[in-house]
Structure formats: C-alpha cells, structure tokens
C-alpha cells in the first residue's frame, strides 16, 4: 500500500507532474526574462508564466464549429501526458530513474515525438487554414530534426553499450570523462532540440507573421493553457534528457548537491536555448530542412563513427 502511495507521490508530485509544472513555468520565466534582458528590455516578473496559465485556465474555451471537437480536445492532453511520461525514464540526479528498463532511451525519444504529432493532429482537426499550414510545417520539420537528434543521443548510448538511460548513467559514473567524446553530438542535439521546442530560428510552424500561431491558432482557454504547459514541460524534459545523456558527471553526489548540479545543468541548457533564439533570425522551412540534412546529419554521423572507433580502442 505504501509503495503504491509512494509511486503515486512520485508520479504526481515529486519528481513527477507537479515538479514538472513548477520547473516548466520556471524555465519559461528564465527563457523569457533572459530573452528580454538580452534585448535590453525589462522582461516579465517571476510569476508571469503562472499568471498566464491561471488566466488561460479561467478563460472561455472556443472550439471552431468546423473543427472535430473530439480530436481538437484530445490533442493537447495527449501531448501533455506524453511529455510528462517520458520524464519518468530519465535519471535526474543519481544513477537511477523513476522507472527504467533496457530500451527506455527509445521510449523516451518516441514519447518526445508524440507532442509534435499531437500538435499536428490538433492543428489539422481545427480546420483553420493557418493551423493546417502550421501543423504540416511542424511535421515536415519533425523529419528534419528528429534524425540528427536520434543519432546524436544514440551515439552516446552506443559508447555506453546500453539502451537504458539509467545504465548509461552507471557507465558514465564509472568512466567519468567519457562524456567529453560526445560534445559534437551535444551540439547537434541542442540545435535539434530548438526544432523540437519550435523556438527561433526553428519556430517556423508558429511563425506569427506568416501563419498567425500555426497549429495553435484556434486554441483558447484551458486547451491552450495545456498546450503552453506542454511546451514548457517539453523544455525541461528535453534539457534533462540532454543533461543525462551528454553531461553525465557528478552523479554520485549526495541528493542535495546532486539536485543542485542537475538544476545547474538544466539551467545552462535553458539559457543556451534562449541565447540561440536571441541571436538568430527565423529560417524558412526549405532552408531549415537543408540545414538539418546538410550539416546536422553528417556531424551526427561522424559522432557515431567516432564513438564506434573510440569504443573499439578503449573497450578492448
């Protein structure tokens, strides 16, 4: 009985859903505040993301009469639950995740793809023209960034010779400096993560000057609040994943210091994302795709190759 309660606590409160909501809103705040300060503006106060969320939750929900109400309503919830679920398999501080099995790395990656597909479904079934163009764009973009992201993350797993994130953590604790070999993969994955989070320069699906808000155009009220929360949570999950895969050092520390180090890692990734979106202009969809295939994929392939060779040399 207590173990069930403890599991429920882990899933719903800490380090589960509530923790994700709080950190997600915090990440949104840091992202917005840093973006503003980098642009020489004041930026929002710390409670702004929360206030936005509460305001949206309290607002009237409008569903376009031509939209398919079931699909329209289910898409945000699908996106949110996929993003939250994937978090449970990522080791945060320490060597173990909440749940883990051999192969969970693939599950996490696929679960992280689901929100994008959910945005597509929501956008498509809202039948607005802007939403349709936006959702088609987000799927087009998905095929471009997903490949380098997968290759980057899997190359790190290849070095550790496991398909489980928790076991990867164990491996990298045993070989403390091996993460240095994966830096190129880290770079590729950060850029691919920008695409996944639909942030500039890859905010093409929701480019407001072209397609208003892309797939989110028709969303309002609670459903829109869920969508925004999903993106915030995705940011934390993505940053945690990159931190676990590419920055796996200091995992043996005591929980408090470990938590501090983990927060630091996630924070620096969030700041890096904000910095990147400050200094780059939005790309066009064709440029984005050719950039991903022409630069990111070869670099990720090289990383894979390099890791194979390193493994052959060092693991004999």
């Amino acid at each position, binding site marked *: 009985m207590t173990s069930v309660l403890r599991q429920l606590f882990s899933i719903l409160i800490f380090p589960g859903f509530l923790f994700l909501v709080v950190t997600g809103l915090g990440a949104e705040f840091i992202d917005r505040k840093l973006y503003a300060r980098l642009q020489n503006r004041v930026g929002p106060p710390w409670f702004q993301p929360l206030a936005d969320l509460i305001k949206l939750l309290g607002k*009237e929900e409008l569903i376009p009469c031509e939209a398919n109400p079931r699909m329209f309503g289910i898409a945000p919830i699908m996106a949110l639950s996929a993003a939250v679920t994937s978090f449970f398999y990522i080791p945060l501080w320490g060597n173990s995740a909440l749940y883990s099995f051999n192969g969970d790395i693939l599950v996490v990656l696929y679960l992280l793809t689901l929100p994008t597909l959910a945005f597509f479904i929501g956008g498509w079934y809202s039948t607005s023209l802007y939403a*349709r*163009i936006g959702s088609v*764009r987000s799927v087009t973009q998905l095929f471009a960034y997903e490949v380098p992201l997968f290759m980057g993350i899997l190359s790190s797993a290849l070095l550790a010779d496991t398909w489980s994130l928790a076991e990867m953590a164990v491996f990298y604790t045993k070989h403390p400096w091996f993460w240095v070999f994966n830096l190129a993969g880290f770079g590729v994955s950060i850029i691919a993560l920008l695409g996944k989070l639909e942030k500039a320069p890859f*905010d093409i699906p929701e480019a407001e000057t*072209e397609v208003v808000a892309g797939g989110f155009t028709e969303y309002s009220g609670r459903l829109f609040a869920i969508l925004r929360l999903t993106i915030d949570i995705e940011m934390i999950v993505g940053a945690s994943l990159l931190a676990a895969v590419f920055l796996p050092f200091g995992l043996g520390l005591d929980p408090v210091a470990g938590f501090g180090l983990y927060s630091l890692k996630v924070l620096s990734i969030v700041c890096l994302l904000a910095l990147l979106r400050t200094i780059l202009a939005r790309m066009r969809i064709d440029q984005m795709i050719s950039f991903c295939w022409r630069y990111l994929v070869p670099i990720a392939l090289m990383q894979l190759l390099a890791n194979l060779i390193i493994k052959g040399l060092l693991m004999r």
Partner: protein
Amino acid sequence: MHDPKNKFRIPMGPQHPALKEPEGFSVALKGEKILGVEIRLGYNHRGIEKACEQRSYVQDVYLIERICGICSHTHSTCFVQAVEEIAGLIVPERAQYIRTIIGELERIHSHLLWLGVAGHEIGFDTLLMYSWRDREIVMDILAQVTGNRVNYGMNTIGGVRRDISKDQAADVLKAMDLLEERTKYYIEIATQETTIIKRLKGVGVLSHEDALRLDAVGPTGRASGVRRDVRADDPYAAYGKLNFDVITSNHNDVYGRTLVRVKELMESYKMIRQALKDIPDGPITVKAPRNIPAGEALSRYEAPRGEDVHYVLANGTDKPERVKVRAPTLANVQAVKHMLRDRFLADMPIVIAAIDPCFSCTDRMVSLNEEDHSHLLRWDELRAYSIKWHRDNMSIDFSGLNKKLMDRIK
C-alpha cells in the same frame, strides 16, 4: 476553400500579424509556394481628399499631416509647398532649412522603424528591439525640436512654426553622432549575419526593367537600380544647396532594399550636419493670406518610402477646390504582386514589408458604423461584463481585485 488541385487560398488580412495596418492579401498557395496574390486595398480610406475641400487651408495643414503618422512632415510639407506656390509666397531660407532638417530626421526615424519591422517579419525580434531602442534617440530629438514625437505640427503656410535654437542644434548634432555609430553597427549586422542574409537575398526580386515599368518609387526602385530621388531631381526646400549621394543598389531584392535604407541613413546624418552648419539667420515665416488666389500646383516630395505627390487646385477662396494626394505606397503596391510570384509563403511578410507599406497614406477613410453604437462597449463596461461572466460561468469573483485596480487608477 479547397481547390481540386491541392490549391489553398489563404487570407492575409485585413487583420493579420504580419500587417501593421488593415489591407487584404488573398494568397493562392500550393504547399508553401505562392501561385498568385490578389490585393484588396481601401480599408483605411478616410475621405481626406473630400474633407480637405470643406476646410480652410490652415485646417487642412493639420488634416493632411494626419494622413500618415510616420511621414506626417512629408505630407504637410508637400501640401504647403503647393499652396505656397499658388499664393506666390517666398518662404524664408531659414524655414526651408528647418523643413529639410525635420524631413531628414523623419527619414531617420522611419528607416530605423523599417529596419525593426523587417527584423520582426523574418522572426528576428532582437533586431527589432535594438533598432527601435535606438530610434528613441531620434524620436526624443524630434519631440524636443518640434514638441511632438509624431504629427510634428511644424509646417504652416508660409514657413515653419518653431525655430531651432543653438542648444537644440547642439543636441541634434550629438544625437547624429550617436546614431551614426549605431547605424554603422546595423550595416555590419545586415551584411554579415548569416540568417539575415539567407532570409533577404534573392527574395522579392524586382528587376530593373520591371521597376521602371511598374513605376516603383523610393528605396524600392533605387534598390533595383532606378536612380530616382526627388530630392536630387526636383529639389525642394533646401535640398538644392546640400551635397548628398543618391544611394542605389543592383541587388534587386529585399537585401538591396535593406542596404539602400541603411545607407540612406548615413546620407541623412551628413545632410543634417551640413544643414545645421549652413542654416542662415532670419525670420522663419512670412504672413500668408487667408484666401489663396486661384491657381494650381503640383508638389513632389521624397518621403522615406518614395515619391509623394500632392496636387492642389485653388479657387480664390479660403478653401481649396481640390487636393489630390498620391502616397508612395500606392505606386509601389503594384510591384508587390510581381515580387511575390513563385516565392514561398514565408517570404510574404518580408516582401510586403520591404516596400515599407503605409496603407493609411495610401487609402486616406474611416468607415465607422454610425448607426450601430449599441455594440460599442467602453473599457469599464467591458471589464464589468467580463467580471460578471466569470462570476456566473466560472464561479470566480474578480470584483475585489477590480476595485483595487480602479482605486489605483484614480
């Protein structure tokens, strides 16, 4: 909405985030490719030309000034020049110089504004924030010299209404140094930042021949190698006495238009410095008669967006018989259709923005539905309605919060 051949027709406007003013673009799309564009103008038609006929010349100066907020000095100068020509008034030299200085300051603020808008259209908000921050320098200078940030109210028939004092001239010069440094930085950014160049080069191409054929004016034409600048060809105010280059570019695309505009900024700083050095002392206005003798005049002015044309016909009374305004955007809007053919949807905002459209100028109406005031809610009424809605439907009561806020406002 769906054509059989996978053709989308999407409306861009009259309300759309890419457009800062209401105009309708109906875009036929195949995937991301634009097949054709249909333009519907007129949402901002305010009947100013008709209204001018019913007001006196003095009143018209202020009405004309409000054709456009960004190029208000453009329109009022263009109008008073025409009226002065009909009345045979010799405007004092000092007034001519002051008009020139304000005109160039206006060009600076307009071009910096454009740079920011261009940044926003290509999803580069950082450029928007920085260039608009720096634009505040020139806005402050304009407020200091003329008394207002926009709609300066500087012109009157027969001269200008305010003088530029020694202190103000020194402030203007100081601001010019600051802005010149910043503009050099923006030229550097525009010519070196990869993502900007990628989004601007080869986009919205308007060949030299097409620019001539479609009568493109201002920076839009000059970026296609059309060497037309009213300031140089048909000098007005004090432009005949100033040395400056007409900036042209052969890029023919949005990138060229950006270069022309930022380089024109550098010319403007040069011109303002020279004008402030050469400005003669003397009166700033001559007395104008209330009744303007019969006659007609055509006045041209190089607005930041291109050639602005005003035609005034006087009939000997204190009211004009006819005022015709042709704003630069109207001449350029034809070219937009041409530039967008076979481009991507993503290029549309920046191509439209690249002519620096000013649809208020172009359309000159308000179609406020006078009979239907019943649905107009005042701000506090709207608040009350929203509080009631939340209390009834969501069981959340905001009235306490509202009271606090209202108290603070009072």
